């Protein structure tokens, strides 16, 4: 009569480890709302402002950000290749593409820094400057976080047997990176393409 009570297949502790990806996806959904709030705030402020550009500012240069866009979009491709290598058990390929993605992310941050240092307006230059630095800065923070997470996953790949049978951390980081990429495309359209008010 007692042998029927327990249910070994649903061992809770074993199941316990596998929720990271679920939790991370839920977190990303929530995180996207903060960008949605910033984007809609930007659109509302821009459409209702009488003088959008502060005095002496012509508009934004688009060449550097366009290069950055190409860099970030292609890094989404390289991280996908890295994940495929991982799925096939090719650790060397994984590390190579993973490093390339990290480098592209770092280049994006460098490009962003170069763009910032060449601008003739600051964070406090009216609502134009405020929203520009808020959006690009908050997104840049996410890029930096992504590069940091990738570094972490790269180090973990050197722990023997760690990535046998897939790794949720890699999947989560890659998902995060695609998320950062999509956010950038929306941001690029909003800030650099939609310049006329």
């Amino acid at each position: 009569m007692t042998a029927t009570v327990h249910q070994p297949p649903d061992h809770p502790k074993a199941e316990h480890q596998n929720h990271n990806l679920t939790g991370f996806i839920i977190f990303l959904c929530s995180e996207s709302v903060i960008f949605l709030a910033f984007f809609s705030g930007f659109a509302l402020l821009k459409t209702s402002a009488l003088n959008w550009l502060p005095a002496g500012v012509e508009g934004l240069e688009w060449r550097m950000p366009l290069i950055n866009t190409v860099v970030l979009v292609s890094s989404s491709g390289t991280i996908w290749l890295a994940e495929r290598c991982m799925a096939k058990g090719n650790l060397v390929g994984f590390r190579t593409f993973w490093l390339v993605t990290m480098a592209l992310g770092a280049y994006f941050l460098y490009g962003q820094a170069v763009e910032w240092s060449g601008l003739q307006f600051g964070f406090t230059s009216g609502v134009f400057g405020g929203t520009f630095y808020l959006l690009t800065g908050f997104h840049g923070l996410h890029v930096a976080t992504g590069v940091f997470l990738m570094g972490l996953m790269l180090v973990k790949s050197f722990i023997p047997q760690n990535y046998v049978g897939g790794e949720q951390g890699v999947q989560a980081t890659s998902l995060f990176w695609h998320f950062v990429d999509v956010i950038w495309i929306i941001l690029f359209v909003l800030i650099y393409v939609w310049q006329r008010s």
Partner: protein
Amino acid sequence: MTSATFPSSPPENQSWNRYFGFNTDAKVIGIQYIVTAFFFFLIGGLLAMIIRGELITPASDLVDRTVYNGIYTMHGTIMLFLFIFPVLNGLNNLLIPTMIGAPDMAFPRLNAVAFWLVPIFGFLLIASFFVPGGPAYSGWWSYPPVSIQNPLGHFINGQGLWLTAVALSGVSSIMGAVNFVTTILRMRAPGMGFFRMPVYCWTALAAQSLQLIGLPALTGGAVMLLMDLSFGTSFYEAEGGGDPVLYQHFFWFYSHPAVYVIILPVFGIFSELFPVYSRKPLFGYVYVSLASFIIVGLGLIVWVHHFFTSGVPQWMRNLFMVNTMLISVPTGVKVFAWLGTIWRGKLRLTTPMLFCLGGLFNFVFAGITGVMLATVPVDIHVSNTYFVVGHFHYVIYGAAVMGIFAAIYHWFPKFTGRMPYEGLGKLHFLLTFIGANLNFLPMHPLGLMGMPRRVSSYDPEFAFWNVLASLGAFLLGVSIIPFLLNMLSAWVRGPKATHNPWNAIGLEWLLPSPPPEDNFGEHVPTVISRPYGYGTGEPLVEHQAEIERQLCLQEAST
């Protein structure tokens, strides 16, 4: 052989120290949350006593006017961010894992971090009483332009601390919400499909989804406000091209759903408790469960009704009025389901049941004034008056806090292993019910007569109702004494509780009181029927009789 198959006996003499440190057990964290929340409840309550003490006479004579502004701001902020959200997270921690048969939350360490942020931002908020210029004084909603002024010019000021605390509270709540949602989605007992889940879990899932959707907007808005205040940006400052109404959108996009974050779990508590104390299955289980998510959907598209007077276009007013009124449909479904549950049941008027009935009564009243407030003409007439304050307090204190008290009395034996005292409990109920109605009912006529909120002096013609309200408030203050007395003495030396003192149905009642650290451990029972099978004789899980027999044997041997 039998003793090895079923959850080990309740842990003997576990150290009290575990409540004071970083512990990852959801049941410990739950109690940490609830005790911390009631500590802040006493502070927030003290501030309420000062407010009502000031308002008992028409003149501004008890505190300085600027101090008064700080006091009502902090009263609202403390009660929401440091009392009601933490106390609900505490209940979630205690109830969700035990109700779905999980050993713990999905992310136990994240859970503990989320809790420990509460005392940290609580400390920040309380510390603002002691900085130059005093605490934030722009009301709990902190609208610009009042909230972006810094007359003394100190970098560390009350408003800045307020914003930091609110942002941290958001971070903590998001951590909690990710945890609760993942746990409910992924860690249910075998056989427990979504439509076999207790309604409390449905409502917690709905409420925490709202947190995930709404909170980032407030956090983002608060960060922008902090930058306006401290770093000279002009997001909300008209001079620099900003728009103060934008903040109102951000704020209410979260803070209206926040009311549902509070009331939904209380709906869950009502849905759990009415069947137990009426000995009948919950009427319309499926509709009650789904109504929670209809409330989530509608609750996200009503926020503009908080600022019909802030220069909103007419089409927006009409749209949001209709959306707001629609919410009374799913809530009405729930109210009828509870009435259908009580109808012709064998009522047991225990303390938790009394709190539920009182809470339901107050909720219906608050719902009626809610529909009134949704109507644009009425809203414009009573906007920013005591009518709004009265409505709000009926929802939050009259319904939500009474529901929370019901939950505390109901599940106290489960998680402490001791029974609370009925006499003190009933006294607490009586004082709370009379006090709440005496306090908040007079606010409605006051609002209709035109008494504005957030003033420390008023026309003598408002005096009569204000005196009544203040007496009610003092009664509410007194009502906490039997509650605290009951909790403390019952926890220390109350009669021992059996595993199921209320004869309730649910996975948590198939655990010893208090449950062992990993709840069912590896022996999670398989759920075979819907919850609330009262009077049907249908067992909830496989081998229920055997499990209960073992629990009884265990209790007899200790």
